[in-house]
């Protein structure tokens, strides 16, 4: 309940702040319209069905992408943990590829991948894979050594050790990486849509800017924020499922 209330509250706060900037007239109202205008613009996009469609397109891409990429990232992290030489290579490839901005990659990637889903997938993967990968690798490496000994005594091979000991112990940290990746999966999808999309929020953002519909551009940005918050709530639910013990344990007095 509070988890759902909180975004609403923060949204209110953001709106108040926004309106304060408008009143302060730092930026001409034309480029930074009052909140009421933005809401109205959003409403009219909803009335035309534009907003829902874009949210659906972008949302489904981002959610599917986030799921896939988090699984891949965690999987790579597991593999790298199993094979230290792979880890050494991946870590450095990560260090080299991570800072390459997607906006720089997309124009080149179009040559190789075209304009379809492959491009989206590539961009999302390239940008989003690192947080879950890095979190998985670092969390798995940090397993309490006593627990590892317990696992070895139980006769766990590497796989059982991962499954029964290292992975559950690492879950809180991994899910922090997953939460972050989920957010930037959304960014990656929107950036791709802006550059080569025919639909979705990214495309709409571009189209509205071309039509000089500034209130609608802002309304779309708010919508992106809400979509992001919703995805965050979904991750929280996963967290409670997989690492709820961690939260409960934290609450304990010493």
């Amino acid at each position, binding site marked *: 309940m509070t988890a759902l209330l909180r975004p609403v509250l923060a949204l209110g706060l953001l709106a108040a702040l926004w309106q304060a900037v408008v009143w302060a007239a730092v930026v*001409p109202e*034309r*480029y930074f319209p009052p909140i009421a205008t933005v809401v109205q613009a959003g409403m009219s996009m909803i009335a035309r069905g534009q907003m829902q469609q874009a949210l659906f397109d972008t949302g489904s891409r981002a959610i599917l992408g986030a799921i896939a990429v988090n699984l891949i990232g965690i999987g790579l992290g597991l593999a790298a943990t199993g094979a230290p030489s792979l880890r050494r290579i991946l870590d450095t490839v990560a260090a080299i590829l991570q800072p390459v901005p997607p906006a720089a990659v997309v*124009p080149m990637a*179009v*040559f*190789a*991948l*075209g*304009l*379809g889903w492959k491009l989206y997938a590539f961009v999302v993967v390239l940008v989003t894979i690192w947080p879950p990968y890095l979190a998985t690798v670092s969390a798995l490496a940090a397993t309490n050594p006593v627990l590892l000994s317990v696992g070895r005594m139980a006769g766990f091979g590497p796989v059982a050790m991962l499954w029964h000991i290292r992975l559950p112990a690492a879950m809180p940290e991994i899910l922090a990486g997953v939460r972050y990746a989920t957010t930037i999966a959304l960014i990656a999808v929107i950036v791709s849509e*802006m*550059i*080569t*999309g*025919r639909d979705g929020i990214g*495309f709409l953002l*571009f*189209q*509205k*800017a*071309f*039509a*000089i*519909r500034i209130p609608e551009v802002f309304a779309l940005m708010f919508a992106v924020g809400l979509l992001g918050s919703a995805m965050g709530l979904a991750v929280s639910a996963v967290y409670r499922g997989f690492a709820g013990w961690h939260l409960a344990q934290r609450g304990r007095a010493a």
Partner: protein
Amino acid sequence: AEELKKVRFAYLLSDTLLSVFRAKDQGYFAAAGLDVDLIPVQGGPAVIAALASGEADIGYAAPVPPLNARAQGVPVKLFLTLGHEADPDRKYVWLVASKASGVSSLADVKGKKIAINGNGTGCELAWRDHLAAAGLSYDDAEVVVLPFPQQEAALEQGTIDVGCAIQPFYASISANPEIGAKVIARGLLADEKEPVISDSVIGTDAWLSENEDTAKAFAHAVVKARDELLANRALVEEAAVTYLDLTPELAKTLDYSVLKPEVDVKPGEVQRILDALVKAGILKTPLKAADVSIDLKL
């Protein structure tokens, strides 16, 4: 019924394309045996990339990016043009200064901040050509890269002194009393006594060599739609609202008249731009019109 021929058309947003949107919506493409798939992308290079990667068969862009690409060995050719510029006032590019900048002519630009929407675009060519004609060099000004939608605010804020605008942004800037827009030059080239092509429909060499008939059919359908638009101002405004999402007020400012009813590219027109590009230093090596364009002789 005969199977429709699929044509993938990558484009960047422009008011000129109202005819293409209308041709598709009214079924003129279908009537010509074409199934045209419209693929919006952001920026000329992306159009080129879409063609080069085989994701699109034909594309729409300003003339500079495809010519640039050709010079780099990307096998694309111009085969249609939907608009021409010509002296004195048939122009689609404006160099506009804000009142606050104190710039009132090209000569004042020295040391000022001028905007282009991207390197290797029509705006860069326009600036280079006009400045050269005014006896100045491109490097005399401070060049800032800024997308079209942001230039109006930048002018108003004083972030830039002179912008490079196309429609509908030019109309919006002109109507903004805070800017007090002053046009210091117009047109892609300084000298447009002869008409100059202002945009281009392009295709890869491979596609064009096999689909000349398709290209012609495409052209006829577009011309049909364009003729209807030219004949009825109300239709233009309606299309601008429908396809470009412009507000009705903004749509009223649209200038949709054309200089030449023909859409096939004449080698002479292309050569003029090529020469200007070489003169401006954007193209390092001279190219021949015949190598970069096809005259469909419609």
